[in-house]
């Protein structure tokens, strides 16, 4: 069957990463196009995502799908093997709840905690810790959020488990520590050690200087505002 699958992404984007990991989990071949999102977005990107003009964009047989979580749901429904969402409607609703929680609360607050100015950092950090405690409770003794294998919540939580961990290293913060959040910390180790995850994550030595530069930019912009 002639399937044409393309991903317009950015190598360091945690959102873009989700789309790629999902396709890899399904064993779907795709062409990856790296967009210069900080410089010059391509005409194709602007054509396929006119509303938000962002990555990732999944192009399947010429039709664009945008917004990382919408993309994940689409991939699940199109390639119906190696399923990463539960079949039961209640369990599915629960997974969707945690995904929303990560994207609306956990991830943004953790990112904010990384670059906030000193005087605001404590408050944001406390909030982030509360969210992480709550997220940890969702693990509930399981190896992954999806149970024995990686599920959609794990894919989305990679933003916290990998990208935020790298960010914290740069800032000398220790929010996602083994003693404060043992289950969540263990989860992030197990997740990053999965072969399919390991081979697809952006390399740490490349990501570190990139995130450092990004944080500096955020701090600069915030100081000006």
């Amino acid at each position, binding site marked *: 069957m002639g399937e044409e699958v393309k991903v317009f992404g950015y190598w360091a984007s945690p959102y873009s990463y989700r789309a790629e990991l999902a396709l890899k989990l399904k064993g779907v071949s795709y062409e990856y196009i790296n967009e210069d999102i900080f410089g010059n977005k391509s005409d194709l990107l602007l054509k396929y995502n006119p*509303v938000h003009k962002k990555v990732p964009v999944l192009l*399947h047989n010429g*039709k664009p*799908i*945008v*917004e990382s*979580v*919408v*993309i994940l*749901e*689409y991939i699940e*429904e*199109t390639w119906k093997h190696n399923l990463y969402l539960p079949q039961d*409607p*209640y369990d*599915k*609703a629960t997974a*969707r*709840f945690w995904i*929303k*929680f990560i994207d609306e609360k956990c991830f943004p607050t953790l990112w904010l905690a990384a670059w906030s100015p000193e005087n605001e950092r404590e408050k944001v950090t406390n909030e982030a810790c509360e969210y992480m405690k*709550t997220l940890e409770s969702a693990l509930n003794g399981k190896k992954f959020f999806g149970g024995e294998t990686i599920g959609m919540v794990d894919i989305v939580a990679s933003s916290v488990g990998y990208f935020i961990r790298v960010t914290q290293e740069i800032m000398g913060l220790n929010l996602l520590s083994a003693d404060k959040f043992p289950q969540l910390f263990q989860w992030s180790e197990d997740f990053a050690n999965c072969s399919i995850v390991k081979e697809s994550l952006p390399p740490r030595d490349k990501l570190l200087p990139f995130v450092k530069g990004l944080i500096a930019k955020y701090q600069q912009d915030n100081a000006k505002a």
Partner: protein
Amino acid sequence: MAEEVVLLDFWPSLFGMRSRIALAEKGIKYEYKEEDLRNKSALLLQMNPVHKKIPVLIHNGKPVCESLIQVQYIDEVWHDKAPLLPSDPYQKATVRFWADYIDKKIYDLGSRVWKTKGEEQATAKKEFIESLKLIEKELGDKPYFGGESFGYVDVAFIPFYSWFYAYEKCGNFSIEAECPKLIAWAKRCMQKESVAKSLPDQQKVYDFILQMKKHFGIE
């Protein structure tokens, strides 16, 4: 099997309205429980410990939180009547995109229209109208966002119609003048019993907003 469905809600909530409409579309009998948000019930705090917010859908004792998650859940459980989401994955992705747009852009901008004043409000108003025009373009000439039948995006967006009068009075503009097709669509939706009985009166909503403004010290 005796199904027990309870909805913890608050009458002007745009989000609660979505679940009311979805349940009505499916003809599901449920118990509606009005919450006093200044004095949240023990049940609410138990059923939504993470956010402590309404709406909460409780199905046979198990809670489902977040309105769009509830609408999808309702559609999946009671799948043999009045389907709300399309079955095709690409069409499903499209409706999820627009529901997400409504929550990320339209809701926030609308909030800023009634919560702010002066230049901040002027900017919010301009962006709000732009976002309405964009979604009006998506509607096109279709009777509903779902095409011939009322669907997921219609459910996600029609509650805002009950707040239009409040936005207009606070921002001093006419949504009908800016987006006539959207108003025509809204009136068409209001012909449906599931919508008409789920949306509060626009004047009532405006009075509520005025109270909120006083409470927050925004005049």
